[in-house]
């Protein structure tokens, strides 16, 4: 009722003002009189109505502007941040909304000179308000913009489960455990990046959104986006540097000592995960919320925020890919490759918009380059094998260091078999199918590559075996190395990569070496023991057998002397060799001795002639292949 009455009263007063005022200035003057006469006739209340009936009453506009000017000027010149007071900020935003509405309402008739002059003043006021908003916006971001600190995050992780804000934790470092006995303050493994952080408190984000809305509405979108992105960029970059990541040029990375670079790679892996899994998504969320409904501003701003940090991260991976191809680097570079591969879905998700396409593509390019680097390392390994000179032969025909190195290297490399399969895919790797499940494993490019390396190793070893003047020793050398290779293959992933055929073939090769050894070492000795009818002719038998025994003993001594220093590292192989030598030698010798003793003139004095019994021979054979130092399987 009361309101209705007041409405009527105002309508009457308005009517009077309109009827009496022949010009607009006069109407305004009358309204002025009314407003000082009674508070109910305030300019605002009156103007609404007049506006409806007579839009040309620019006096109302002037009136509104004066009032807004008073309010806004007061805020614009305030010494303290407006957003430090909730009511103040709300009132300031209301004033701006009214100003924006006024400009919007009057703009269609701006052609009229007096109106234009008013609007000019309104624009001026708006601009001042916007400058202030820009500063407030920056202040709000910076106020809570403590850079992200991983250590602190992990200290606080138990609290961080859903909501981790940097706003209030400054003095909370000590009370991690306070609010729960069941929380154990342990150092959490770095592998868990499934954390959501709010780098800005929720309240601040909605304040920023309110400001952004006004700035966009006023046509100050560019200023807003600029302040936003420069502040957040600083935040991100500081967060990245707190992760211990430095900005390094490619040359600096190249010059770095490997051990130092290894540490840097470790930090990078952690940093890249934190950035892509925690920091960037968090920025995306903040950005989407602040620029909610203003999406064109959001996407561009987000790109600007993340661009520098992303490029810094990618540049390092690139520098690693471009760097030395020394085989020892394989494992760390595989780590970088895998990290980037596993982060590709994050790159796709967080940088999905058009502005970020560049960053997405860069990541893919550099990831591919890491694959090339890994292939380059294998090429370098091939070169190392191919060029390993046949200089000094390994004493005793033992295991060559290159065999040990290459086999252990490949075994270790096969620990990352799936990744390597991916790297050696013919048409370049695809992170979407890391298992390479749709192709038969045996025919993969990786197995071709490994087979090729094994071939190189074998031919290198063959060249080295030629260094031995004794062909038997040369066979022992090949046997030793071949045996080692086959065994290392059999009990690792290499077995399935190289396949059963390969293992069968190479086991056969080792056996062939065994046969060769036997032949070149013992056939001469066995030949001596052979007895034909000629040698057993009664008139010559004694002489021939005596001579044969002498030669046998001499050969046997020689062989034992040299072969006891030979090396057979593998115990089983050593046993096999001894058994097979003894197996051939003992029966032949026993047979020979039998004949020997059967010859009458020898039989009586057999002991005089026979230096070794069969048992002696077997004992001596058991001393073969012990290495020069006598230590079993010794290798320097």
């Amino acid at each position, binding site marked *: 009722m009361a309101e209705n009455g007041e409405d009527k009263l105002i309508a009457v007063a308005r009517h009077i003002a309109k009827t009496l005022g022949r010009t607009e200035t006069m109407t305004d003057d009358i309204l002025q009189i009314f407003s000082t006469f009674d508070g109910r006739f305030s300019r605002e209340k009156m103007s609404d109505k007049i506006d409806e009936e007579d839009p040309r009453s620019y006096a109302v506009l002037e009136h509104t502007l004066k009032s807004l000017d008073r309010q806004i000027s007061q805020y614009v010149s305030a010494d303290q941040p407006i957003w430090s007071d909730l009511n103040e900020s709300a009132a300031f935003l209301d004033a701006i909304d009214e100003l924006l509405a006024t400009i919007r309402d009057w703009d269609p008739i*701006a052609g009229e000179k007096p109106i234009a002059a008013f609007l000019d003043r309104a624009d001026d006021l708006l601009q001042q308000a916007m400058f202030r908003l820009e500063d407030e916006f920056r202040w709000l971001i910076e106020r809570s913009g403590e850079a992200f600190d991983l250590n602190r995050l992990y200290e606080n992780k138990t609290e961080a489960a859903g909501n981790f804000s940097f706003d209030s934790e400054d003095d909370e470092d000590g009370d991690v455990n306070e609010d729960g006995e069941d929380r154990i303050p342990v150092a959490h493994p770095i592998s868990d990046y499934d954390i959501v952080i709010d780098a800005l408190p929720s309240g601040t984000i909605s304040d920023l959104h309110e400001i952004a809305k006004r700035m966009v509405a006023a046509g100050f979108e560019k200023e807003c986006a600029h302040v936003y992105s420069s502040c957040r960029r600083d935040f991100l970059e500081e967060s990245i540097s707190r992760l211990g990541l430095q*900005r390094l*040029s490619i*040359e600096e990375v190249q010059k770095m000592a490997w051990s130092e670079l290894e540490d840097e790679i470790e930090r990078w892996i952690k940093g890249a995960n934190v950035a892509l899994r925690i920091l960037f998504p968090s920025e995306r969320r903040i950005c989407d919320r602040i620029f909610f409904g203003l999406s064109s501003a959001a996407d561009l701003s987000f790109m600007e925020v993340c661009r520098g940090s992303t490029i810094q991260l990618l*540049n390092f991976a690139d520098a690693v890919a471009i760097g030395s191809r020394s085989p020892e680097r394989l494992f760390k570079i595989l780590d970088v490759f895998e990290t980037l591969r596993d982060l590709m879905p994050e790159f796709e998700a967080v940088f999905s918009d058009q502005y970020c396409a560049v960053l997405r593509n860069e990541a893919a390019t550099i990831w591919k380059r890491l694959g090339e680097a890994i292939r380059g390392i294998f090429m370098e390994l091939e070169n190392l094998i191919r060029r390993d000179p046949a200089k000094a032969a390994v004493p005793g025909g033992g295991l060559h260091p290159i065999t040990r190195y290459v086999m252990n290297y490949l075994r270790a490399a096969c620990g990352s078999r799936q990744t390597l399969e991916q790297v050696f895919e013919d048409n370049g790797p695809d992170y979407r199918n890391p298992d390479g499940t749709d192709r038969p494993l045996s025919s993969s490019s990786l197995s071709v590559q490994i087979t090729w390396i094994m071939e190189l190793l074998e031919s290198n070893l063959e060249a080295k075996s030629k260094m031995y003047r004794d062909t038997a020793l040369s066979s022992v050398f090949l046997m030793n190395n071949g045996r080692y290779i086959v065994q290392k293959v059999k009990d690792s992933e290499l077995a399935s990569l190289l396949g059963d055929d390969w293992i069968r073939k190479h086991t056969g090769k080792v056996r062939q070496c065994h046969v060769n050894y036997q032949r070149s070492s013992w056939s001469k000795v066995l030949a001596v023991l052979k007895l034909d009818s000629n040698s057993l002719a009664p008139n010559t038998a004694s002489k021939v057998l005596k001579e044969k025994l002498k030669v046998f003993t001499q050969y046997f001594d020689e062989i034992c002397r040299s072969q006891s220093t030979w090396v057979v590292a593998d115990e089983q192989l050593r046993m096999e060799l001894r058994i097979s030598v003894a197996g051939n030698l003992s029966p032949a010798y026993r047979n020979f001795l039998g004949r020997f003793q059967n010859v009458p003139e020898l039989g009586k004095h057999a002991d005089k002639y026979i230096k070794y019994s069969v048992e002696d021979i077997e004992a001596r054979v058991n001393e073969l292949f012990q290495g020069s130092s006598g230590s079993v399987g010794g290798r320097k």
Partner: protein
Amino acid sequence: MPATDYQGSSAPFASIGRSILSIRRDHVHSMETNHEATSLELELDSFQKQVTERFHELSSVTGEDLLSLSWIRRLLDAFLCCQEEFRAILFNNKTLISKSPLDRLIAEFFERSVKALDVCNAIRDGIEQIRQWQKHLDIVLVALDPHQRMLGEGQFRRAKKALTDLAIGMLDEKDSGSVLQHRNRSFGRNNTTKDHRPPGHFRSLSWSVSRSWSAAKQLQAIGNNLAAPRGNEITATNGLAVPVYTMSSILLFVMWALVAAIPCQDRGLQTHFSIPRQFTWAAPILSLHERIVDESKRRDRRNANGLLKEIHLIEKSARHMTELADSVHFPLTEERESEVRGGVKELGQVCEAMKDGLDPLERQVREVFHRIVRSRTEGLDCLGRPNHPE
């Protein structure tokens, strides 16, 4: 073969210098006089001609267009073509590459090219920095948009603020710290924020290289010990030392020109080019070098943070706008207003040209980067496997 399209054109400068064939013959005294050119010699000869032709074309640029965006892009195009041809030469002569002294020369070239990669990255940052300047200009253009109702005080204040930000942004990194400290907010920030950040923190861009990185030093490193091959080296490498030297020189020049044009950390143009005149491409490169050095010494450009023509235009246009904005009184006279509108139009054109040119330039710089890496990878593969059956 790229030679074919060359032979069709009537190259007016083919006679300027001696061809690689004649350089070689001078050194190989034992050759018969009716020496028949081998395909390798033809290939090398054609490379020299191509390089010469390309740089002659680049050096025929007017003073107006020298160091413009479009010229820089042509320069990079030329580089990419030369690089491609060089790559083909290496590929076709794989067997020779691993022989001394060519293996050493090529390894040195790859060393230089890796150093160039850092320059490419720095240039990419520089392009991004220009984009940041453009943001301020965009604000000026929005503020003083000729299509809007009228130009009032508010609009001018807005434009002036953007112009000031631009001026700060365009100052060299080393000077910017102190200026930024003087930058005031409308409310005191010292008592409201914990300001632990170092001066210069509000830089408009962060470089992706460390703060101590220096473009000048990097150029110096690329050019280190770069000398024309001696006669015996040319003979011993079947002439291949010549394209290696040629490509190294092109690499150095192109990187130098990029550093001259685009803002980057610690620019310095002191690099010396001493290319023997008997190389037919020496003349155009040396003349371009001289012209660019002259440009850098001009009074109005001496302190520029990049000699790119468009940067100069931005500076000029922004200065003009600043003067105008500082001198206007309100209400605007019609004369003033049309002057302002003229200035805005000009600024708009500069911005438009910049906008259109920067993206392709960035892509091209990236392409240069990728090509250098690829060619080096291939080269290392070749150096690595000497007798590998292909």
